[in-house]
């Protein structure tokens, strides 16, 4: 990373920490914001946050690795999480999973080369009466069928305008 880039990032990270404060109980809200903005929590970010909270970076790392929604590995701008728990399984999640893999050209746990999509499994997302269900970032889709997968992905693609990144940060799809 260029020094100027690093300085810019440092400034942004500091602003996030300052928003939440430096109490230990602010750590997870801070990490959630970093994840939302950068789609990953880098070593550098962990170091900056640790320094500001006065804890060891390994402490930050141990928290990041514990939670499914905090990630060291880069995640796409659209994270698709298909529910794999029993009611969605009985409602036909396997066919939806297959079609997601086909249409995105990746397997579960992978991110597309263009950095747009990450495909993951989720445990029960509380839509058991309307399965198969999945989350795309924070938005929930229910009664998904293999045919609908294409429409949902296209909707994501279309929102890739100049404002997409900003939109993703605001947690609107």
């Amino acid at each position: 990373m260029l020094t100027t880039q690093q300085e810019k990032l440092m400034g942004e990270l500091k602003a996030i920490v300052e928003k939440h404060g430096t109490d230990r109980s602010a750590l997870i809200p801070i990490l959630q914001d970093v994840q939302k903005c950068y789609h990953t929590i880098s070593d550098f970010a962990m170091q900056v946050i640790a320094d500001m909270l006065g804890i060891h970076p390994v402490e930050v790392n141990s928290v990041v690795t514990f939670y499914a929604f905090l990630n060291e590995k880069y995640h796409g701008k659209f994270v698709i999480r298909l529910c794999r728990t029993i009611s969605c399984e009985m409602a036909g999640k396997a066919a939806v999973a297959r079609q997601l893999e086909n249409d995105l050209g990746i397997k579960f746990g992978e991110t597309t080369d263009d950095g747009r999509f990450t495909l993951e499994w989720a445990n029960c997302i509380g839509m058991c009466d309307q399965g198969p269900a999945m989350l795309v970032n924070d938005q929930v889709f229910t009664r998904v069928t293999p045919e609908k997968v294409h429409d949902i992905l296209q909707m994501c693609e279309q929102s890739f305008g100049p404002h997409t990144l900003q939109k993703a940060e605001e947690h609107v799809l």
Partner: protein
Amino acid sequence: MSTMNDTMLATIEADAGLKAALQQSRIDVIGIIRDSGMKGRGGAGFPTGVKWNLAAGVHSDKKYVVCNADEGEPGTFKDRVIMSDWPDLVFEGMTIAAYAIGADEGIVYLRGEYTYLVKQLEECLQKRRDNGLLGHSIQGKEGFNFDIHIHMGSGAYVCGEETALIESLEGQRGEPRNRPPFPVNTGFKGRPTIVNNVETFAWASAILSKGADWFKSFGTDKSTGLKLFSVSGDVARPGVYEFPMGITISELLNQVGGEGAKAVQIGGASGHCVPASQFGRTIAYEDIATGGSIIVFGPERDMLDVVENFLEFFQDESCGQCTPCRIGNTKLLDGVRMLKRGECSMKYLRELVKLGQTMQIAAKCGLGQSSPNAFLSIVENFQNEIMGRIPASA
């Protein structure tokens, strides 16, 4: 019935319970909750009045009221519906609890999967502040100050366990603590804290509004009141239902269009799998307790697929802190896969049963203690179906 408008909960007048509470002493408010006999609606079934009384009795400069909105148990979604349809009732219940125990700060621990609810919940909180239902001297009650904020979870089922939830609030990994000490004494930041389920707070508002006797007029002696159930699986009308405690499984199945089921999973992945021969049993603390998850399996379902799915869930969600749970769930899952391939001897199956029973005793928290339940009940009730399989490919 799955339209929530037909429920009793929908008829509760907004903030009547809070207004009634503020006209009484703290002790009397706790007394009413205790008289109602309500047990926690999150699954563990601890009497709510007793919990509040314990926290009220501790002297401290700071106490917390925490609403457990982590709703991660497979098959459970009634808390989502309560928060979408009646958020006021939940915040009202938290405010009543705060008054009763002497707390000035409330936290809703909302699962990350429900981020789409935040905007609506924040708006509701703001409206309550504007209307003097949160903030300083609530409803003109001098010295009663209380506010609520929302804290997001980050995708970990175990954080629904109350001590793991507190660890998570404190910025740590969500690893359950040893109990005692209990949160009512040593909770968030070491202060007395009550953790209650979303539905528990909603019913607390209803009880203060309508009285303990009204609540007790539903249910059984040991399991009073009404309860919300999340119904999914092989039924004609899945959704959220309100039933009195003590309903039999067959009555429930009739209401939701699940007649002809082969088995019902009560209490989610950590609950029990009840075969059709036992559908006369009741859903109550004295028989089969539950946080409200009902998953129905039709005649064609393979019970090994079901238990494999549950054990994959537990293997994934175990915090890994203690051996019986970390290793035990993996062993049970391997065993189920052996059964599916038709490669498991009776001797090994009996060892797996012993392992499951050991986990029930030796695991540190409720996750590991209950994760073998489904496996054990399926081995007990469906032995004919699971032994001597010929694999599909053979």
